[in-house]
């Protein structure tokens, strides 16, 4: 047994080092270079910034309407997330607990949205949004997470949850004279908080990070969201400004990282659920 000990230590050490290099170093590199000048980004990688140029973080707001991009992203992610949770909680509850003709068919139909990559329908969807007068606006970016695959997935999670809730709760509420909406609002929604938070985390991450949709549905630089904005840190003719791009990237990641650090377990639970989605 004892001769295996050093081997074990070596394996553990190697695993820790490799994992750190692969999963932490890229972020570290990004932070370091967000504080370098453009010229200092080049050359052998260093562990610390050379000139500690904090102005980079001010400059990104001059190169692009970056504050506007942050606001846009917050708005899209906020509306998209709230809409997603409300709409899917309602339908998830109905599909689980209320009996009505066509329920099974409609539910299966809705689930087809789950497997519908947005890439498949993006072309006609673009023409449709244009027809509704929504081109170059943020509305499509809010509508898609509510009603597209992300919405269907939230509905699926809510339904699975409501199926496990004992009937007695609801019956008691109904006997107390609560309406269907009242029952949902005062009894069922409060107990579904864990699912709601999972659905909200997933919807928020998805909308915060989405790239293809803003690429297609927004045109002018004022309407950009963060991922699109990051890929656009070039000078006016397309050459990347690495130091600014890194500062902007860092700034866009930091809020997400902070949220993740605080709610680690919750976020991981939510993501693990998403992995087994249908």
């Amino acid at each position, binding site marked *: 047994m004892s001769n295996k000990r050093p081997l*074990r230590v070596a394996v*553990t050490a190697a*695993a*820790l080092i490799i*994992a750190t290099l*692969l*999963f*932490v170093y*890229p972020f570290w*590199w*990004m932070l370091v270079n967000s504080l370098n000048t453009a010229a200092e980004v080049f050359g052998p990688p260093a562990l610390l910034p050379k000139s500690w140029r904090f102005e980079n973080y001010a400059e990104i707001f001059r190169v692009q309407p970056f504050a506007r991009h942050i606001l846009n992203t917050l708005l899209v992610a906020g509306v998209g997330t709230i809409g997603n949770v409300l709409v899917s909680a*309602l*339908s998830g509850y*109905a599909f689980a607990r*209320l*009996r*009505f003709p066509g*329920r099974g068919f*409609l539910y299966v*139909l*809705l689930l*087809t*949205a789950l*497997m519908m*990559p947005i*890439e*498949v*329908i*993006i*072309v*006609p969807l*673009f*023409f*449709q949004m244009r027809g509704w007068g929504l081109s170059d606006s943020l509305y499509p970016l809010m*509508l898609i997470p509510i*009603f597209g695959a992300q*919405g269907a997935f939230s*509905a699926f999670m809510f339904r699975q949850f409501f199926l496990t809730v004992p009937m007695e709760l609801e019956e008691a509420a109904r006997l107390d004279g609560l309406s*269907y909406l009242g029952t*949902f609002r005062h009894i069922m929604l409060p107990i579904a908080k864990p699912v709601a938070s999972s659905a909200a985390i997933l919807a928020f991450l998805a909308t915060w*990070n989405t*790239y*293809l949709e803003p690429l297609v549905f927004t045109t002018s630089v004022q309407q950009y969201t963060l*991922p*699109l904005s*990051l*890929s656009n840190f070039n000078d006016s003719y397309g050459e990347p400004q690495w130091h600014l*791009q*890194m500062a902007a*990237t860092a700034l866009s*990641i930091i809020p*997400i990282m902070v949220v993740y650090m605080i709610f680690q377990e919750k*976020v*991981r639970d939510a*993501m*693990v659920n*998403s*992995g*087994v989605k*249908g």
Partner: protein
Amino acid sequence: MKHSLTARRNAAMEAMAGYAFILPQVLGFILIVLVPLINVFVFSLHNRNMLFGTNIFIGLDNYARLLTDGLFVQSLKNTLVFSLLLVPINVIAALLMALYLGEAGFGSRYIRAIIFLPVVTSGVAWAIVWKYLLQGGTAGPVNWFLAQLGIAGPNWLNEKGWAMLSVVFNRVLKNLGTNVLIFYGAVMNMPGEVVEAARIDGAHGFSMFRWIKAPLLMPTILMVTIVTVIGSMRVFDTIKLMTDGGPEGSTMVMVYYVYHKAFRTFETGYAAAIATVLFAIVLTLTIAQWVLRKRVTHYEQ
């Protein structure tokens, strides 16, 4: 009599409430998903060009063109290669890490935390950083690091073969965390007495995995594999930002080809035909998954 009338009225009320509750979602679904999906097919039967404003019904001509379009065939192959590389690497690496974490060795909490960092990061940010790290020559940090070990690294994103591997690698790192945690959950849920009994019977290391753990984990492995396959069909931001489909079209995958045709050369009808093929593939995989899931749950019970 009176009772059944009330019951009927109640049933009607319940149905009304049910329809009202699902109305927003179903209506939105029809408008945002179903109508465009039908339109994808309709578009694919037309010669549509956004630039020239053409829109002529041409039947299945776009599909016939697919067969002779070298780049489409290549994109189909690339998608296949991408999935065939990504899925095994991802699943095996995730499984190994989960087994390692399951031993609760030193630093496993730390690893569980950090492998999730890329998962919550946007694919765009992850691709931008890695594009720089993977520069060719000795300019990029990855090659600089390899040079310290005496290895001359390739021009990762600009050489055929390496470019595809780099993109796969990027995606694996980005999404590994999710699969690790799913496997980790399954590992922790393995019946301890079975594993313990096997250990007493002399099973260790690989034999333990092969005969005891692998069968127990099989349902999870199957599910994760298929979900990863479907996810791998959708790689867009990584490709667009890291390789732009190059070099020599070696990383041009189907989703990116759809985008290219629709929004670079403006052939929206033809792009819709490619999207239809993509849809058929995803649909097949999804059905396979549902069938498999049914069997697996059956087996589990």
